[in-house]
């Protein structure tokens, strides 16, 4: 059974890894960073563009390590990548990943294997589908004409331990609600991740 099913630790690592890759992919696809800052890497059976910008790598590393720390006790319910206009700070896009933790009691009781546990390969296939959708989303998302920056938000429980590098924030919703497109989800049998992208609708004058 080793390797074919997933433990809680493995599930968390998978979720964090997925988040890292999807953020990288989005930053490339949405041209938040120039293409020179990215290199192709094989992952999930796909060619995914990951950053080679040292500062960005460090930034993502810091975020991911904290996510891991929060996911272990199951303290966070949403991860959000907010793309903002650099000058006006207006939110133009919001990539949201909802995290549903299965069977809390099951986890607490020493990581007993779920009956419906999946193999890593199956999960990778599901992740692959999301990644493809992220890439494909460029076709319908509006072009970001102005220079953009991003921010990472986490919806956490109230009693979560917050390091000094994080701060309370408003939800950074898109003004006027925007258009929402639900992407696929994946399930590690510990965590279920739903992906959603919301974007600002430009009124065609």
């Amino acid at each position, binding site marked *: 059974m080793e390797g074919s099913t997933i433990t809680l630790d493995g599930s968390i690592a998978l979720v964090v890894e997925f988040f890292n890759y999807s953020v990288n992919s989005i930053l490339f696809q949405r041209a938040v960073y*120039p293409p020179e800052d990215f290199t192709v890497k094989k992952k999930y059976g796909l060619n995914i563009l990951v950053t080679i910008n040292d500062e960005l790598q460090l930034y993502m590393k810091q975020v991911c390590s904290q996510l891991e720390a929060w996911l272990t006790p199951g303290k966070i319910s949403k991860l959000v990548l907010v793309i903002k206009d650099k000058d006006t700070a207006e939110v133009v896009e919001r990539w949201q990943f909802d995290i549903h933790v299965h069977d809390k009691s099951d986890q607490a009781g020493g990581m007993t294997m779920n009956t419906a546990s999946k193999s890593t390969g199956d999960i990778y296939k599901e992740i692959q589908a999301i990644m493809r959708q992220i890439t494909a989303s460029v076709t319908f998302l509006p072009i970001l004409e102005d220079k953009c920056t991003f921010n990472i938000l986490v919806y956490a429980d109230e009693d979560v331990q917050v390091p000094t590098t*994080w701060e309370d924030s408003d*939800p950074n919703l898109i003004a006027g609600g925007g258009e929402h497109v639900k992407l696929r989800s994946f399930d590690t049998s510990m965590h279920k991740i739903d992906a959603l992208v919301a974007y600002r609708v430009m009124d065609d004058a």
Partner: protein
Amino acid sequence: MGSPSARKSSTARSSVTSSTTKSATGRQTILPFVPVSKSQAVALPLSPARKNTNVNPLLDTKALNYSPVQSNSSLKQTSLLSRLKSVKAHSTSSVPKVATKENQLTSSSQPSADLTSSTGPRRTLKRSNSAFSSLDIVGKDWLQNAPTKRSCKVNNKTHYDRFIPNRDGMNLASSQFNLSNDSKSQYLDRASQEYKERVAQACGIVPGQRILAFKAKPPTSDKEDLRKYFNPMMKTSTSTSSQRRILTAPEKILDAPGMLDDFYLNLLDWSSLNVIAIALHKSIYLWNADTGDIKPLNYESNTNTIASLSWSSDGSYLAVGTSDGDTQVWDVETNTKLRSMTGHESRVGVLSWDKHIVSSGARDGSIYHHDVRVAQHKIAELHGHTDEVCGLEWRSDGMLLASGGNDNLVNIWDARNTKPKFTKASHNAAVKAMAWCPWNLNLLATGGGTSDKHVHFWNTTTTARLHSIYTGSQVSSIVWSTQYKELVTSHGLPNNHLSVWEYPTLKKVIDVPAHDSRILHTAISPDGQVIASAAADENLKFWRVFENIDKGKISKKEEVSKLVSAGKKQGQARRSMSIR
């Protein structure tokens, strides 16, 4: 329907998020009320009207184990508390029993507010001594399922003033802990909870959650994303940058008294050292555009007026053609005449330099080449015109010379030949205006006089006429821009204007009404931005027609020297130049 007290207490808490709790998750719900109740609890013992009063056994036994010692009261507290209770009574009116009892209570306490020793206030006060708000007490008092246990540690060490709560005496942490641990308590004030949820919802907050953002700013990448250039939806370049404004007002006006109103003369030239030479009747003035200094040239003659002027390419020598056919070379630095080169039998109306050669065009239609270095200066005679030569222009590489005359002809001369390379007779009037294109060596523009009013563009390699413009007015001079693909023509009647044309579209950019009478001469500044025009109205005016808008100010000096070397001939002294 949130009660005022509930609102007050909720605002007392700094954050809605932290104060909102879900009864569904079994969290403590009365958290928001803590500050209010505490201040009350603290306030009691310090009151001036401190009194030990009898404990009402009925209340005392009821669910709350408060010590009688703390049931001290003051008038004001009583009224305040009773008010709170009356409010609460209304909000809990769903339970009739409660409502009536509460009403009784308040009604009894209100009259007793005046009487310090009455039992009414004491009763109410007593109950308010808890660490909880009066609201909760009421609820607990009158509901069957009211929790029986409360931590009241705070009360034991409270000293208070009504207005200045003494928080030293309370253990905030422990009381809050106790409160939040009381899982049995219900959120009774449904309205206020609902209110809070609505506020939270309006703010986009899910109660019981915090939204955290990673504080650090994401790194910026300075590299430009070239992908946007592939996108046809991007803004086109029809924006402000390509648009320049040509002012129709002159930048400067100088007086030029004694300017001869003669179309066939050439009395104005601008040197590469930014000095303007202008001939006014029998004298020549040098106006330094950098400093504004005016220096008269030591030209002295009682009989001969000046017919033409031309700067050498380095700007240190001035060739002067006189009305008696003399061609002189002046050193402007020492202000002395270097030599006189005679030969023409009539006035020399036009001069043009090519390195060490000065070409002079005379009224009899002859053109001489003078080598200024040798004693036998005349090295060639060109006879291609039958009437006065009024336009003469060497190409910047010195290979071709263009000449125009009052015989309406345009001749192109090869420098090695004394026969014209070709002759054009397309103009119907004297051809004074002629200019070689700075970016296309083959291209020559010529303009005709009053009865012609045309500008023709010639390919001097193929000899073909490329374009023509009808200007509607006498063309007295043509100047190509070194900055834009444009040219300026100057005109006489009726408008005495300058026209700016795009090339090769030949679209008119602007007409600048310039002078009161016909424009005779124009010259362009060495930085290529300003046009000077001299007219029969005895004014010398400066127009910033080709303003350099795209280039940054830092590189301006460099640009200027670059333009000088590009626009004029090479091997000249470089200096930054501008007109101010």
